[in-house]
């Protein structure tokens, strides 16, 4: 069957498919590639109208900031090696060493340990080793590509991006854990119930998913600002002002995310054959016991995938966090808005670009790690509709 297809495929069509895909890949990757390039150049190179000057950065180079051929080769090979490890080796290690039923935690710990060791090797050990190598290797050690990390140090140390980063970690961790805990239970319940009520809950969830986030924020904002007074009758003097508290935005983001989460988890649970829990029920388990002992060990692929999308929502959010947190204490994405809006000099612009790249880098590795899960998540929602 496939052969007929292949034989019938005219060569012109195949070639144009390849050409179109090459074109598409350039369009897809170019803006991201470009901001990465300009983030390591001095402003005068970064916004040069000649693209070659932007890439090679003669001004940056003349300030003595650059990379030699050796730097580039070794750096690239480490990055490619890391990429290879993440796609194959890491997954095998996690599967081998995580205790039964805790694959999710295994992934989190594995990914964090891996990321940390990469950061230590790449940013801690590499530079000193390389500068030594450059000194002893003569012409090969001369700088050929302008490269300066000063904007990154401005962002992370002077502009205190570390604090925003911590807030982002806090918010995303909270959102992922809570929305998965609630969502898994509800998704399982909805998948195993064919009642009319389940259908209506799903439809209402769908309508909730369509709500513009600003509508919800309008509902929260007055309450968050005045919460100390409103909650005083219940909590007494210790009633908190919710406005400006990262953990309070967690609740909002979880709620926004919940409709999507239960839809997706429901479709994953529907793929787990119901004979499995029925067998456990016959052996005398209650529904909850069946869920815990039979379903939990096999549900992790779906849960990890849904967790990824919850992570993306929380990490990428701008509207909720910028509205409900104070400008000095936001997560990373709203913080960058204040940077590029104040871009008075070109240096400020490049600093904003460096901040943007800093936000994108974790996402890049996320796709590298979890490509298969993301694709399966996108299609899972679709196939079951």
């Amino acid at each position, binding site marked *: *069957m496939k052969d*007929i*297809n292949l034989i019938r*495929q005219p060569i012109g069509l*195949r070639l144009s*498919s*390849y050409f*179109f*895909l090459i074109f598409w*890949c350039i369009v*897809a*990757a170019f*803006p*991201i590639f470009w*901001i990465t390039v300009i983030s390591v150049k001095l402003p005068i190179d970064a916004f040069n109208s000649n*693209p070659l000057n*932007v890439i090679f950065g003669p001004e940056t180079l003349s300030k003595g900031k650059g990379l030699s051929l050796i730097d580039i080769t070794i750096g690239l090979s480490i990055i490619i090696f890391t990429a290879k490890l993440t796609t194959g080796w890491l997954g095998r290690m996690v599967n081998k060493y995580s205790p039964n039923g805790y694959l999710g935690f295994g992934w989190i710990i594995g990914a964090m340990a891996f990321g940390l060791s990469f950061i230590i090797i790449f940013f801690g050990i590499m530079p000193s080793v390389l500068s030594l190598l450059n000194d002893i290797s003569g012409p090969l050690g001369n700088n050929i590509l302008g490269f300066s990390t000063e904007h990154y140090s401005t962002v992370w140390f002077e502009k205190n991006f570390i604090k925003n980063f911590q807030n982002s970690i806090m918010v995303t961790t909270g959102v992922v854990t809570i929305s998965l805990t*609630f969502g898994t*239970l*509800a998704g399982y*319940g*909805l998948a195993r119930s064919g009642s009319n009520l389940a*259908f209506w809950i799903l439809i209402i969830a*769908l309508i*909730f998913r*369509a*709500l*513009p986030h*600003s*509508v*919800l*924020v*309008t*509902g929260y*904002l*007055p*309450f968050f600002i005045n919460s100390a007074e409103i909650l005083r009758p219940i909590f007494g003097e210790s009633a908190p002002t919710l406005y400006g508290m990262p953990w309070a935005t967690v609740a909002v983001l*979880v*709620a926004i995310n*919940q*409709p999507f989460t239960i839809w997706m988890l429901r479709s994953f649970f529907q793929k787990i054959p119901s004979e499995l829990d029925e067998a456990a029920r016959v052996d005398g388990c209650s*529904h909850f016991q069946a869920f815990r002992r039979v379903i939990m060990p096999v549900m992790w692929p779906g849960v990890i995938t849904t967790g990824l999308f919850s992570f993306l929502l929380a990490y*990428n959010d*701008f509207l909720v966090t910028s509205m409900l947190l104070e400008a000095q204490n936001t997560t990373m*994405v709203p913080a*960058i808005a204040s940077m*590029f809006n104040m871009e008075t000099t070109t240096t400020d612009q490049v600093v904003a*670009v460096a901040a*943007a790249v800093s936000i*994108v880098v974790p*996402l890049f590795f996320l*796709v*590298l790690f979890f*490509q298969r899960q*993301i*694709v399966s998540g*996108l*299609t899972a929602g*679709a196939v079951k*509709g």
Partner: protein
Amino acid sequence: MNQKTFFAFIGPSVLMMVIFIALPLATVLKQSFYVTQPVYQTLEVETCTPNFTGQVCVKEIKTIPTIGDNGKVITQTSFVGLVNYQNVLELPRVIKAFANNSWQQFISIDFWKALRFTLSFTLITLPLVLFFGLVIALCINNVAKSIRGPVIFVSLLPMIITPVIGALSIRWLFIGDGILTSFLEWWLVRDISMFAQAWTIELMMMFYRVWHVAPFAAIVFYAGLQTVNQDTVESAIIDGASRWQKLRYVILPHLMPLIVFVTLIHLMDAYRVFEEVVGFSSQAHVISLQWLTYDFLTSDLMGNRSIGRASASSMLTMIGIVLLLIPVLRGVWIDYKGKRL
């Protein structure tokens, strides 16, 4: 599964949605009929300035917000009926614009300006996303297996990137003498400023959105293409169907549920266009409905937020999305009914 266990499973999640989604919606509806304002008092203030000969004193009557015991401005909330909605819709100006037969005047009113952009943005990007998604999916399906993985990896990048950053990365290609603006200037031999007028900004926003969403459509369609019934394709070929007829009568009908799915998701997401306005800093030229609400909510220099007007514009935004989704949801409902019968 009996009712009780069912409720035990879905309880926490439903409770959460009631408290954090349904309840805020009810509050927004209520707020949209109320206005909260500082209580003003009229005071006679005497200000004296020293002079060579003595003091010159001026008495004037000032209206200032009343300060309460705790040092905060006292506010009062009063029921105003539909005034908030009137303030958002600005009907007198609309009528005047229509009387003058001037589209320009009509479109310069904030709410209608936002509505016009949001709707045209949603409806123009929808076919583009479906088309490019389908083309990319067909192309991926057409090439050797070994390069499909890398192509999907690259395609996922624009989809997964933070929307604000994605918009910014497009903006930095064009801003000032950015590389693409220079390229266009060299190519068309004229000066170009991409951020000086509304339509170029809108063009960039739409480009960004298609760039951001087409990969999602492509991956969903690509998954659908894997399940096309090969027997049907084969018999179509035997019956002498051309390549185009095969696509039109076998593959597209098979993908139809997925096309509806992508349409639904895209309508929801494109209607709440917001990050583009932030990323392109386009508020002077182009605004969207979500941005309008956001703007009302942001505190002005005095620290006041127009919650009432924000609520009214929220409610109007919500009515809009419900109207937009009714045709699609009706389809889902009929489908469900059909399955049950």
